[in-house]
């Protein structure tokens, strides 16, 4: 890895972040924020973290930007009054905030600088790197940590996603569904129809090869959610709701959670503990083949179902209101 290249990317991360903060136009600052996300993904790839780079590119700069744009299009904005408030003196406004933030940056850097030393692997990461193949049968060490060594954490994480989906559905419920947009033009619809199988294939390859190559349930599920979002945008919401009904998404999400729990309990039933992998009823298989790594394929499928269904229902709950008539609804 070359340091000048990294410095170049760091510089542009800061520049795009400044643009995102100080631009008056909200739409442009969202795009600048998305560019920051893509540059961060590139830096992660340069720093030898392919899994994290993939997740950052798909989730943070893809899905979050689309959610931002939906939320932006949903809100009515009366012009904001100027940033100055008349009661408080000028120095108490942005200059004091800038001073506090500069001091914070200096002290944060000083603290981090005292951490700088020759890095060596701790005992746990060294153990993971040395023994993953024998202990789990997987080739991707990050997936092995997420789905074998610390699988209970992943179960908790999917619970967080479930909580977020429930909260959003609760907050945005009550809007009645009146009419749907007709979608985009004929050419875009045909193009989307041709593209969909390939995007699905890409999602499936990320999902099912997660224990061998960078990827896994979170990334693959997010690409599945992207397909649902694209169909929503291109064909209109009612088409999407007819093809993949919200009920189906709910069932898929619950099915993912159930699959995770059942795989975990099968280890407990074997007598070796919740979410036991190779010590439980699962076989290691040939390293490098699709059916290897014990229960990791099943757990990736469970996480993918949960993330894909969850994120697409978040998008659906948000865009549903956009399709409603202006003020005809109350809650």
């Amino acid at each position, binding site marked *: 890895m070359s340091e000048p290249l990294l410095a170049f990317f760091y510089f542009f991360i800061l520049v795009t972040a400044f643009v995102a903060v100080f631009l008056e136009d909200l739409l442009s600052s969202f795009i600048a924020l998305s560019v920051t996300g893509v540059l961060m993904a590139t830096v992660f790839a340069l720093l030898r973290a392919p899994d994290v780079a993939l997740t950052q590119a798909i989730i943070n700069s893809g899905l979050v930007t689309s959610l931002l744009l939906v939320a932006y299009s949903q809100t009515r904005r009366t012009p904001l009054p100027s940033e100055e408030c008349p009661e408080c003196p000028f120095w108490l406004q942005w200059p004091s905030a800038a001073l506090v933030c500069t001091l914070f940056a200096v002290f944060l850097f000083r603290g981090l600088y005292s951490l700088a030393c020759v890095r060596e692997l701790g005992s746990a990461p060294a153990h993971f*790197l040395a023994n993953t193949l024998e202990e789990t049968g997987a080739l991707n060490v990050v997936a092995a940590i997420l789905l074998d060594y610390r699988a209970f954490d992943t179960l908790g994480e999917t619970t967080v996603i479930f909580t977020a989906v429930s909260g959003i559905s609760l907050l945005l419920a009550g809007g009645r569904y009146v009419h749907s947009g007709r979608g985009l033009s004929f050419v875009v619809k045909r193009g989307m129809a041709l593209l969909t199988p390939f995007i699905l294939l890409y999602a499936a390859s990320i999902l099912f090869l997660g224990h061998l190559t960078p990827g896994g349930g979170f990334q693959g599920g997010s690409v599945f959610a992207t397909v649902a979002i694209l169909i929503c945008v291109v064909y209109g919401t009612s088409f999407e709701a007819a093809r993949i009904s919200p009920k189906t998404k709910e069932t898929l999400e619950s099915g993912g959670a159930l699959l995770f729990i059942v795989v975990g309990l099968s280890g407990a039933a074997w007598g070796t503990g919740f979410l036991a992998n190779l010590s439980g009823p699962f076989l290691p298989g040939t390293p490098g083949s699709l059916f290897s790594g014990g229960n990791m394929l099943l757990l990736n499928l469970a996480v993918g179902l949960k993330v894909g269904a969850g994120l697409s229902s978040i998008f659906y709950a948000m865009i549903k209101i956009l399709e409603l008539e202006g003020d005809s609804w109350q809650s």
Partner: protein
Amino acid sequence: MAIMSFITVSLLFSLGLFTVLTRRNAFKTVIGLTLMESAVLLLLISWAYIPDGWAPILPLKGGGVDPLLHAFTLTAIVIGACDLALAFAFIMKLNKFERTVDVDVFRRLKG
């Protein structure tokens, strides 16, 4: 290398803090939160990097970088996206009642 990352992380985090402190548009507050989160992710990944280390995909041809921090960062990204989605839902709901995204107007709970 590490010093460069630390400078970027401190600047990015305090830029996000500045945005949260000074901007009154709720969307700008969310942008500030995103920047602070990005700074933390960047710190974790640059801390996981070991010079001449390989990506944690077996078989390794030498020493590897820290896979445990990568797993933590992956978790943090997914949970951060869910948090942001919830924040957008709150903004949309508040906007429905107050017809604005100015955080100074959201004072109904103020005693």
